């Protein structure tokens, strides 16, 4: 019986094998226009949410693109790149014993280099199982003078 030499691709503990790549995991994304959701609403799953497959060495801009495809590009009036997305992840803090949140960063869909567009998920401190809360705001393109 021959075994193929492969390494465990658990997204929590193992490093990504360049031949295999990082393992995608499911992220629960709660979204709201112009404002943020309350932490308890996010944890109680009261507000609208979508499910997205992401991976740890994914940038915030790439995550924003997946979110935009499911939320913004479904209607014609919102199908344009002039949007700004503010991310934060919500988790239950074991040490404090209460729900907590942490800001991940902001991205603009029309320019991946603006703000924290190139910041990786693993650099934000997020772990598999944390929920993401996104605040979607309009952001107009400004011409360079």
């Amino acid at each position, binding site marked *: *019986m*021959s*075994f*193929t030499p*492969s*390494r*465990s*691709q*658990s997204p929590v503990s193992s490093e990504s094998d360049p031949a*295999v*790549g990082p*393992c*995608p*995991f*499911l992220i629960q994304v709660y979204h709201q226009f112009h404002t943020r959701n309350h932490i308890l609403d996010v944890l109680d799953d009261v507000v609208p949410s979508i*499910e997205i*497959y992401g*991976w740890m060495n994914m940038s915030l*801009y*790439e995550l924003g*693109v*997946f979110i*935009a*495809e499911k939320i913004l590009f479904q209607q014609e009036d919102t199908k*344009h*790149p*002039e949007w700004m997305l503010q991310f934060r992840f919500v988790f239950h803090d074991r040490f404090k014993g209460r729900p907590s949140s942490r800001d991940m960063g902001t991205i603009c*869909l*029309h*320019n*991946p280099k603006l703000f924290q567009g190139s910041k990786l998920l693993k650099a934000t401190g997020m772990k598999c199982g944390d929920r993401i809360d996104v605040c979607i705001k309009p952001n107009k*393109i400004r*011409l360079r003078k």
Partner: protein
Amino acid sequence: MDGKENKIVKEEHPSKENDQVQTNDSMDIDKNEGSTVHNDHADKQPSDERKEPTENKRSKRMFGALLGTLGKFQKEAEREKQSETRVRRAELEKKLAKRQEEERKELDIQESQEQEQREKDLAQERRVAMEDLELDLKDLKQTLKKQESTFLKTNTEPRLYYRPYYLLPSQKEYLDQVREEKD
């Protein structure tokens, strides 16, 4: 005797009252041309004075009339000049107003052209940004599909990806099959 002498003296030296009577009579020169009694005494002194005031007055009147006409002509000439200046000023103001209107129109046209150009550039930027976004989305979906051929999926809903440390032969076959289908 004395009374007669006094009477004579009085006659020789006529009083002022008689002079007045005589000056009044001197005005009516044409009527009393023949009478010499009045002229001998009264006309000697005031005769030049009678001629001078009348001529002076006439000349003064004529001079005054001349001056008046000259002044009139002067005033008319000044009025004409003012009206000319008024006309010129009005013409200048009209020209200025026309020029200002033209400049304003040109500025408006320029601004509208710049605005149109800016909107065109913005629309172009939006189009380019949207195309880039769609390309990025396409690339990300392809990356996700590649990972589907590398990782196994659970049968539960929602499906989760996993890959054991050691793959079973059946699992390896399944992954190879998925890879071949995608290729």
